[in-house]
């Protein structure tokens, strides 16, 4: 029954039709919230007492690293769906999400490195948080390379899914690295379950930036998955009819 339910709602055709309708909402909401969050954070939030204005990188850096991890987690769920229930849409979504994950992880690493120059006096340190995030970036590239190295795409989907599931062990490592090891990187300033150590005047624009980047990346994911689904399903009748 579960299998029948999953297969009914996970057809590439249904996915393309649904996401085409949702795309305008996500792109408008995402860009608007990013403009609001970043304008508030960059121009109106107060200066940090210790870091001065360099802390304003937080409004891009924190949302980026949050989604670097969340995208991988999403890929791991899709990988399990593909391996257990043979849902082909799940494999398509992994392949479409991986470049976006790599891109946003790069932005997270890059923004963190630049932020490190005025605050730590160095752009790079081999500490647990930064190194585990670099491993995440390499994982994304590895997943894409593995998939590209097979001409048999079904086999590539399966092996890519296995690699994604293996690599998910890195996600809790990134999250807990600042608690388990002594790192140059500071512990988390915002928390979903507990209280945040950041002042509301900085927290609100940060939360808006997080939601805005989330919607923007979902809309990018919709575009990316649409092009990949079209390329994989080009011989299907429904694709010819839609195009």
């Amino acid at each position: 029954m579960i299998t029948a339910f999953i297969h009914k709602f996970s057809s590439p055709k249904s996915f393309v039709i649904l996401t085409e309708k949702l795309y305008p909402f996500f792109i408008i909401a995402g860009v608007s919230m990013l403009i609001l969050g970043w304008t508030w954070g960059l121009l109106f939030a107060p200066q940090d007492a210790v870091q001065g204005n360099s802390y304003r990188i937080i409004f891009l850096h924190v949302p980026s690293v949050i989604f670097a991890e969340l995208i991988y987690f999403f890929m791991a769920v899709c990988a399990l769906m593909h391996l257990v229930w043979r849902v082909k849409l799940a494999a398509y979504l992994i392949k479409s999400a991986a470049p976006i994950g790599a891109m946003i992880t790069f932005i997270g690493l890059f923004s963190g490195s630049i932020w490190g120059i005025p605050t730590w006096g160095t752009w790079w340190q081999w500490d647990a948080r930064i190194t585990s995030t670099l491993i995440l970036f390499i994982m994304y590239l590895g997943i894409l390379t593995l998939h590209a190295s097979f001409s048999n795409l079904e086999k590539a989907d399966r092996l890519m899914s296995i690699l994604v599931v293996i690599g998910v062990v890195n996600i809790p490592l990134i999250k807990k690295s600042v608690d388990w090891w002594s790192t140059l990187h500071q512990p988390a300033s915002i928390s979903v379950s507990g209280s945040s150590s950041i002042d509301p005047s900085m927290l609100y624009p940060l939360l808006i930036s997080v939601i805005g980047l989330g919607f923007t990346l979902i809309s990018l994911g919709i575009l990316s998955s649409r092009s990949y689904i079209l390329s994989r399903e080009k011989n299907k009748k429904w694709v010819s009819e839609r195009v």
Partner: protein
Amino acid sequence: MFNSTFNNFNEILDMGGHGIYVWSVYLIGISIIAISFLIAKKRIKEEHKKIKLKNASS
């Protein structure tokens, strides 16, 4: 909360000496995201073109 921290445009650009770090991060970050959108849209167009050619030939 909504009073600007800065008095003029030069202060916004300079950000107390940290402007080069802050603005370069946002400039490069936004550019990468925008380019990703352009690439994704271009790929959809290319796929549509391929499928239309295939439909026309068959």
